[in-house]
């Protein structure tokens, strides 16, 4: 792996925004099981926080108004991103997981950063390269079959965000130690 690699649509730096919120999590020693429910709470908090900026007007072809749509979409996406950051995070790096949400007129950007083992980062890059070079619809069908057969590594979470919620992704991988890489994921959601 080279010093820094970028995939997808990665804005660097993220454009200035007047509204943003950052949460930091330690990958500490408390058993993950005990901390797990906190991630859902954090995701719901982000959903509630950003939903408050939107009116409750109707959304075309939907029974869910704009505020509730933002709330549920932010909650789902933030939860998936935090879960992944925790699952693949490297505790030994002594670095936090950081999630920031930036609000723009019609877009939300999620920025998630976590340390990971370089071998993990390389596996993830292989998935990203396959995703970016595939037809999304065919790739999704292939991966959901893979998941249903109980084979791991389908990254269904990433695929649901892209395919079902129309999110766009960018990734940056930086080498920060002999065994450690820092992964930054940007997720763009039109609202």
């Amino acid at each position, binding site marked *: 792996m080279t010093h820094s690699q970028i995939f997808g649509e990665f804005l660097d730096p993220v454009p200035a925004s007047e509204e943003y919120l950052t949460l930091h999590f330690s990958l500490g020693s408390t058993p*993950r*099981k005990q901390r*797990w*429910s906190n*991630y*859902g709470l954090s995701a719901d908090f982000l959903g509630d926080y950003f939903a408050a900026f939107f009116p409750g007007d109707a959304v075309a072809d*939907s*029974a*869910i108004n704009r505020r*509730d*749509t933002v709330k*549920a*979409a932010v*909650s*789902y996406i933030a*939860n*998936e991103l935090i*879960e992944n950051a925790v*699952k693949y995070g490297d505790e030994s790096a002594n670095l936090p997981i950081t999630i920031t949400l930036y609000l723009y007129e019609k877009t939300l950007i999620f920025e998630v950063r976590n340390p990971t083992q370089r071998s993990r980062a390389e596996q993830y890059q292989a998935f990203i390269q396959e995703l970016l070079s595939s037809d999304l619809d065919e790739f*999704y*069908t292939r991966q*959901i*079959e893979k*998941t*249903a*057969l*109980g084979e791991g590594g*389908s990254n*269904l*979470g990433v695929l*649901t965000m892209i*395919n*079902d*919620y129309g999110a766009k992704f960018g990734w940056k991988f930086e080498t920060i130690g002999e065994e450690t890489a820092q992964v930054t994921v940007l997720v763009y959601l039109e609202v």
Partner: protein
Amino acid sequence: MKEIQTDDYLVSFDPDSSTAIIRGFLRLEGMEEYRPIMEFLLTAVEESSQFTLNLRDLEFLNSSGISMLSMFVLKIREKGGVKLVLQGSNKVLWQTKSLKNLQRLMPSLTLEFT
């Protein structure tokens, strides 16, 4: 076993209507944690030729939970001879976004949204 109940979710089964219901919030960590729920559903479907899974009050499901539903649907497909109906709500965003993808695994699956 007729139900699994925790502070966050409830899974129940009514043999008379051959309907299982999942309600609440489900964000368990990975497939292993979802195994008891899938086993519950597979046991419930065992004797049925028609099976309904009502998800209307399941307000949140993470992607590991979607993976669990995918595995369940694939097992029903492989078993054969079961008419499977999934009931969803137009008011719950994840259901409107993601449930239809399960038809990729089983085109004969019926989705009922209300």
